[in-house]
């Protein structure tokens, strides 16, 4: 089961002289249980792309298939799609609106038409997944700290039990502690619940650390779609797109250029450490 995009195009203000390509011939496949990173500089079309995945934006041409059926086919329920493909927007805490945390999280499942008991069950489960304890349930969402608000907002989407979770820069504006907490919870969701996750991020270090596959958007086109190591090997091209590779990748290249024999496809601190120790170890043996 998967999401498949075929020749998806999206044009703003089609038919007017202002016409601009926001997405250009995007083809991709997302398999169940994958952890995907989506990167691209601001305005590269990545936000537009993720809004297509749950039907909030409609492609001007091309097709999107969810679990085999076209989402643009007649009779396809967009509402159901939106509950299957959960989308957490940037700064999701700005959408909190209810009088207390618990009711806010109930909003999604309630819209799905679930019974009261089931709704509350879901909300409790979702809140525990993001590590919000019962003592918070009756608090006003506006009294929480930034990181807590963000977690409540994410729980609001999780409560709909999506099969695919898309997060648009979930760590933007948070401090390192908040960043680690959120990312840790997302990783847990992926590992323990087997949820398909698409993580939009500006932090190459985070992407390198967690994801199985990276998709790179530039000017509305999907330019890379590969394993992290393979994508970061193109670090010079990435730079031209206003992106970069993790710092350790640069270290590896700089070392190699200076005459230190080591592999350059390292993308995390651990890998780099291992590679350097390996070379140094060999040296000592000689």
């Amino acid at each position, binding site marked *: 089961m998967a999401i498949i995009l075929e020749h998806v195009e999206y044009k703003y203000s089609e038919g007017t002289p202002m016409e601009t390509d926001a997405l250009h011939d995007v083809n991709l496949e997302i398999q169940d249980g994958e952890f995907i990173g989506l990167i691209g500089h601001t305005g590269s079309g990545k936000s537009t792309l993720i809004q297509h995945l749950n039907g909030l934006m409609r492609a001007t041409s091309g097709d999107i298939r969810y679990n085999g059926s076209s989402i643009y086919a007649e009779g396809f329920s967009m509402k159901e799609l939106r509950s299957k493909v959960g989308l957490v927007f940037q700064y999701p805490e700005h959408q909190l609106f209810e009088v207390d945390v618990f009711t806010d999280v109930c909003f999604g499942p309630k819209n799905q038409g679930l019974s009261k008991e089931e709704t509350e069950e879901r909300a409790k489960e979702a809140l525990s997944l993001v590590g919000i304890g019962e003592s918070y349930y009756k608090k006003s969402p506006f009294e929480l700290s*930034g990181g807590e608000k963000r977690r409540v907002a994410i729980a609001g989407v999780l409560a709909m039990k999506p099969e695919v979770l898309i997060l648009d820069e979930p760590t933007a504006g948070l401090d*390192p502690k908040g960043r680690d907490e959120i990312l840790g919870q997302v990783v847990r969701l992926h590992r323990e619940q087997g949820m398909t996750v698409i993580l939009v991020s500006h932090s190459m270090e985070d992407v390198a650390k967690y994801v199985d596959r990276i998709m790179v958007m530039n000017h509305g086109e999907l330019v890379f779609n590969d394993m992290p190591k393979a994508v970061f090997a193109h670090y010079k091209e990435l730079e031209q797109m206003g992106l970069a590779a993790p*710092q350790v990748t640069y270290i590896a290249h700089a070392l190699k250029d200076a005459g230190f024999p080591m592999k350059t496809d390292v993308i995390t601190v651990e890998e780099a450490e291992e590679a350097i120790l390996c070379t140094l170890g060999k040296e000592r043996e000689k």
Partner: protein
Amino acid sequence: MGIIKTKNLVYNYIKRDEEEKIEEVSEAVKNVSLDIKEGEFVAVLGHNGSGKSTLAKHMNALLLPTEGTIWIGGKDSLEEDNLWDIRQTAGMVFQNPDNQIIASVVEEDVGFGPENIGVPTDEIWKRVDECLKAVGMSAYRTHSPNRLSGGQKQRVAIAGVMAMEPKCIVLDEPTAMLDPNGRREVIRTVMELNEKKGITVILITHYMEEVIHADRIIVMDEGEIVMEGAPEEIFSRVEELKKYRLDVPQVTELAYELRKKGVPMRPCILTVEEFVTEIMDTYR
């Protein structure tokens, strides 16, 4: 006395319920004493709620100390007459670029500060020209701020503060809402102002890579200053930084880990170049 000096500064944040009764008193800043010299580039680190923002707002007299004293340009912020002098001495840039630009045209926004302090019209134009040039935004002077990127908006905000000709500029997480390119633009601009114009800079941030060029780093936790020193010194204490839930640049972490494994390295490596030299020394 430096440009900013605090002595035993305490700020209690009072939370009131609907009937204005005191519900809770929390100490946001506890007994902070520091002295910042003119022309210095000081970075303040600490996670959310560590009191760094509260401290920053004291530097502009947006908040007044509950106990203790803060002098800005030698002026005590508790004396009401000093208010406008203080705000002219220490300008302030905030986190959200949208919520601090007042006018609908870039140049008018830069002129807003000077208008407030009664600078004559010709002089305002001169300052606006200069400041927009200093932050590299002259080409956008007649644009609407809504069309700019986050980094550009922050640079306009910086120009708006510069136009008041402050001696010191306090930036409260100016890059938190920006993408990596925007962050670089803003930090480069700030560093230039510090180097070329000798403006004292106090930069509050979560991003470690932004502070490696600072003259001094202050780490705050629970309202107190817990670490203070040059970047080399601070970043050599990786364990301690992690205790305060702060990260270090990958290169520093890598060097730290290698050192733990017995690779001879200097304790404080902040850039890729330094790292390469160190490793090559060992290797040869």
